[in-house]
């Protein structure tokens, strides 16, 4: 089934296109929009849509998708949790937080919990070095984390409606 956006989202695509002198420049913003409206991943159908809409080859669009770490080529869990692993956070306990996350969720980095709720990932420096250790849950940062606060956040993701 072909990927399609709602009328409202199509207007957003038009608005995005109007910002740039050519269509190719809209590739990344439009891919984000599509991913957000396709359960968090860029399917082959999304690539077809973007290629058609922006008059690019599917090979070109796929080349862009594969370069950037935030485009998912397979469906993630309902929520994505990135734990920062870089030096600033590591110095404040980021390594221990990651180990705890894997134990609590029962998954390794890159995997999704069996109930499909949470995908655990690591991120490289998220520009929160003064407030580490920290995680990003979907589009929100949670900083200055203790294990207890981390557990509270994860429990909400795992058990909330």
């Amino acid at each position, binding site marked *: 089934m072909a990927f399609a956006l709602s009328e409202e989202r199509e207007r957003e695509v038009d608005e995005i296109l109007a*910002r740039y002198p050519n269509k190719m420049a809209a590739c990344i913003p439009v891919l984000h929009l599509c991913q957000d409206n396709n359960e968090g991943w860029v399917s082959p159908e999304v690539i077809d849509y973007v290629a058609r809409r922006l008059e690019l080859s599917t090979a070109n669009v796929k080349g862009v998708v594969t370069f950037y770490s935030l485009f998912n080529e397979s469906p993630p869990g309902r929520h994505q949790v990135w734990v920062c*692993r870089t030096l600033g956070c590591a110095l404040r306990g980021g390594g221990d937080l990651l180990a705890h996350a894997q134990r609590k969720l029962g998954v390794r980095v890159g995997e999704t919990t069996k109930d499909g709720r949470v995908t655990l990932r690591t991120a490289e420096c998220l*520009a929160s070095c003064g407030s580490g250790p920290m995680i990003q849950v979907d589009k929100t940062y949670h900083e200055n984390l203790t294990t207890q606060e981390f557990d509270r956040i994860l429990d909400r993701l795992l058990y909330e409606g």
Partner: protein
Amino acid sequence: MLKQTDHLTKNYGKPDSWTISVYESTGGYRAARKALGMSRELVVDEIKKAHIRGRGGAGFEAGVKWGFMPKEGEKPSYLTVNADEGEPGTFKDRTIMEQNPHALVEGCIVACYGVGAHAAYIYVRDELHLAKARLWDAIKEAKTKGYLGKRPFGKGYEIEVYVHSGAGAYICGEESALLNSLEGKRGEPRLRPPFPAQRGAFGCPTTVNNVESVSLVPIAINLGGEEFSKLSALHEMNDGGVRLFGVAGHVKKPGIYECAVGLTLRELVYDLGGGILGDRELLGVIPGGSSCPILLPDEVVNVPGDKRFDPYNGKSVLDLPMGVDTYRGIGGMLGTCCATVLSDAADPVLAAQNIIHFYRHESCGQCTPCREGCGWLERIIDKVVEGTATMEEVDQISEIASNMTGNTICAFGDGAAAPVMAFVRKFRKNFEDYVLTGGKSQTKTLVV
């Protein structure tokens, strides 16, 4: 010289600090109004006098960069703002975008005028969702007030500002990769020449400036370029004004602090940063992001033959004013000026491992020395940590790193090689102990 200032940060922490009403209540948008009433040449001249060294890490003078742009031409010119803050240890630009986004918007107005552009793209890393939202709101507020659009401040010089999202790639903070990414391509750096001022975004003359550099522009316009520059203790070294200093890691008060240029590492770590966690000893400081060589407290300034270093020769590097050229002079790098502090609780070999993992992950893969070099360095350092490396392999680290340096399309290769070489050179014994004891010499982690 410790001199805290609040030109950029005066509204930080105030309720609604990011709104136009708060911004204007403390003098916001006077500079843009003033600049659009000046000639373009005069605006550029003032910014040249301000000696704003690029705040993204390279330290190239913003005013000089503006001067490279064509006076007129067939193609439109563009301003792009590098808001892809991803250098490990760095978290300053984010504070501007979240807490004082109008400073950046106003800076964009003046900068567009100065470089002859009518459109600015603020390339923000995707993960900074709050920053992006605040910037879009600020742009909307500025447009509503007539400060952007076809006739900003009633002048016939059209200016539009857009936010453009990244998608999770550190290398897109490299200016030519940023331009490719803005164009909707893979974020792979370009060979230079041509430079962005000749062929940048969309094949057109482009200026790429860091968030903080652009945000300081209104302050420089209001004070006058020379007055702004003279706020700095390093004004004579063409390193002017004030800047945001960051400190994180094993310190009691991590954070972003605005000071006049001229602050020392000792002041940053012990005065502003509150000293070392647990009152431990200092192992070393990475002064401005992971691409900078680590500095050790017992290192001494020794730059004979350069008069400017006379007051500092023989003194600890911790007491050398943090400047672009002072740090270059001692073979170091100021970078983003956001320091990462390691106490003696930290294992330097593990720190080096953490850093090389970052670079291997983030290499775009275009050129062999970087792609292969980062991978090779990571494998060797992993072996060191596991206790299975040989002494020959430890020697190989410096050889591989030197072969990367200067042989890559962009500075990423140097940025990966330099810190690794510094760790191995300055903590040689730690690396050797791992080899000699099969990894059993590891008694510490990275945490206090």
